């Protein structure tokens, strides 16, 4: 999928949780949201983008969130 759109979506999700929660919790909430609502191919793609391409454009919290997601969501799952 268009990675720019996924990055934009991840950033927008992070913007909400950044305001809502403390930092660690916020990253967990972002990961939780992605896990609940993103189909596996979208999750795989954003994880790969962070891991192999450095995740340019992801906000700091989005990046943390995707890392959390990756930790509980092995690639190729």
């Amino acid at each position, binding site marked *: *999928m*268009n990675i720019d*759109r996924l990055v*934009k*979506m991840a950033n*927008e*999700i992070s*913007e*909400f949780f*950044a*305001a*809502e929660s403390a930092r660690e919790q916020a990253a967990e909430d972002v990961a939780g*949201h992605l*896990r*609940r*609502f*993103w*189909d*596996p*191919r*979208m999750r795989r793609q954003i994880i790969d983008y962070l891991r192999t391409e450095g995740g340019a454009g992801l906000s700091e919290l989005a990046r943390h969130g995707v890392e959390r997601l990756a930790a509980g969501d092995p690639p190729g799952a």
Partner: protein
Amino acid sequence: MFALDHHDHGTAAPVAGAPVTLQIDGHEVTVPTGTSVMRAAALAGVDVPKLCATDTLKAFGSCRLCLVQIEGRRGYPASCTTLVEAGMKVTTQSPQLHKLRRGVIDLYVSDHPLECEGCPADGHCELQSMAAAVGVTHSSYAPGAVHRPLEVDGSNPYFQFDPQLCIVCSRCVRACDEVQGTFALTVQGRGFASKISASEDQPFMDSECVSCGACVEACPTAALSEKALTRGVPRTQAVTTTCAYCGVGCSFTAEVGGTAEAPEVLRMVPNRDGDANHGHACVKGRFAYGYATHSDRQLKPMIRKSIREPWREVSWDEAIGYAVSEIRRIQAKYGRDAVGGITSSRCTNEETFLVQKLVRAAFGNNNVDTCARVCHSPTGYGLKSTLGESAGTQAFTSVREADVILLIGANPTDGHPVFGSQMKQRLREGAKLIVIDPRAISLVRTPHVAATFHLQLQPGTNVAMLNALAHVVVSEGLTREPYVAERCEAPSYQRWKAFVSEPRNSPEALAEVTGVPAELVRAAARLYATGGNGAIYYGLGVTEHSQGSTAVMALANLAMATGNIGREGVGVNPLRGQNNVQGSCDMGSFPHEFSGYRHVSDPVARALFEQSWGVRLDAEPGLRIPNMFEAALDGTFRALYVQGEDIVQSDPDTNHVTRAMEAMECVIVQDLFLNETAQFAHVFLPGSSFLEKDGTFTNAERRISRVRRVMPPRAGYADWEVTMLLSNALGYPMSYRHASEIMDEIARLTPTFTGVSYEKLDRLGSIQWPCNDAAPEGTPTMHVGHFVRGKGRFFVTEYVATPERVNSRFPLILTTGRILSQYNVGAQTRRTDNVVWHAEDLLEIHPHDAETRGIADGDWVGLASRSGETVLRARVSDRIAPGVVYTTFHFPQTQANVVTTENSDWATNCPEYKVTAVQVVRISQAEAWRTRAAQARYAGRTRDPAHA
């Protein structure tokens, strides 16, 4: 004229009062205090003659036909205006009464002779039956002046007014005032010269009349009568069903004539026992049903290998066989997840449930979504997160107890007209109204109703506005602390309180963002928090934003903080757009949820479905509609089954959508018409209208109502039967014999539906879910005593400006809405006479913005955004603020979604229809513009000839 199956009680039932027992003609009857003698008599089986009374209107006491005698009282009181008292002894028949009544009728028929043959009301006219009841066959007066010849006003496409048949009972006037709230009719003149006139004595079409038909139904004679009845086809059958247009979900009696093989709907009459509409309707539900028999209906299945080939009509077998072979081929080649389906909010609960079952059980993935994605998905997310249930909190009748109505991003008099009328009734009784909307919707000022505050904010700034309101509530100490302490999560409340208290969230600080003066915001907040029962109603103007879910949460925060949830008269109420948006969401149409909003990863829920359906189910969420488009462009999503939804016209950023559709190898469209999406389809399966099938719809107040078959499916199958054909051909057997069996399965698998059955729906009329052991007859008000989620949760709702910004190239903000006579993409209403009110979409533009662009009212203008461009006519209007333009989206020619953007709600991907930066220019060559834009979109494809 009443519905065929209506027994009129003369006056309405009072709001439950203590029981009173009295005698009527020797029969004992017990009724609530506040009941009229007339109604009590009707309930005792005694119909007192009457003409000026009917049970949707307040008693008026003008015709003097309903006189009775009451033991111990002098004279002959009118039974419609006299209330029951304990121990009363009422006589409704006596020689004196008979004489008085004959005198009344004699006078009426002197001006309205009983020449009934050929009259559309013959056999159903109240004057005719009252005359018969008192034995009058002709007038004893010498022929004198009569009201003729007077011309019939046939200007309205659906009904006519024949003043010669009018007995000036004023029921029409009162229906327009009391029920509809439009105040279009008056009695002009006095005595013999008095007559009914619309607005300034204008033809109905030129008057303020909105064609709701309430006056037509209230008329006891044929003075106001449906044109459809003038053909003289007898009405032989009455079937109770539910309107298939908006989320009010009005109950109707369909009156049918014709033969068993070719039944014909002659009239739709709103059901006075209807729990949502109480006998009222709007122009769409009452009159605009002709689309069902329109010649544009595609009644034969069709297939084609490529969208560049012409269609080929084939048998059902061949169409289903081809569709299934394609799904199999694509899954074998690209994987199980390369296919999916879209359910429709227009279809029944049973049909929606079956489509998601087909996707999950037969396709073997969770790639199912619904058109609610593009309207109310943020409602589901926002209300579930805060309160614990993805639905509105109240019944419509709750508005009768509201003291302050906060209306944001909704236009009920146009979008939800019957509820709009109920709201107006309450406002006329004195409830206060706060409107938050970029546009001066009708309710801001309409006869006998004026909003106390209209906060005319910039599109896209709802969250800022709601934070500012919350700031006032918290900083001025207007919260209800004991309520919050008892019912809500304390830490979340403290965080939220601290957040909204920050000076940057004050109305003063946010005035620049919202464009609304701080003192107005402060006053509105005080009114909502302290004015008694505060009820929030909202619509797509809240959800269709990049912060749609945030705004829904902000509304819930506000309601919790002020203690305005969990009883009558308050609440947070989404006004759902389509008839079954609530239902399609309830039925598990979202890719991450089973019916009853249980996540697919929930092992307990999944096990329940796996056991019932006999297959393993995927525990991962599937693709949402916009994700499907993305995946199609990526090549990982290749086949789509779309039931009853025109995604190409209704989804945003049309150019993006059409590229995605072109990339798919098999698109199966099931619809009434060859819609815009069908241009990209390989298989077309004819759909069935709501008149052709059994099922249920669930309206905005969670009310489940029956849809009953009035005529056989014109193409041979109801929509749920077609889904079964597909499933069976795919090798996943489905064998329901009736829609009720699907509902039985829904009830078995859905905790909020366990008590629902067709038998119970027939018995109770309708049921508001949750309906289960804890609430066997359903739940009108939710969150009574405690929230469904346990403790209510506050969320911090930081305002984030939409990524869509104005600049010098696109200096105006476009926002969208709908109007009364048309419905969404218009596929139905455009195929009815409703086009006389709205034959095209118009662009409303403020006089100042029009002037600087040299645009005059009626000019063609080009509308361009970063996504695309389109052409429409301008309407110069100060209902909209400078800097903002507004249009509807009912006509495919307008292609309003060509200009809308890819921006969407952060939580649900609900598109941001309500904010698009645009430029508007005056153009002289409308066709050239349109052709250029269309050519870019439709290059090379075979179009539906009707749309070519």
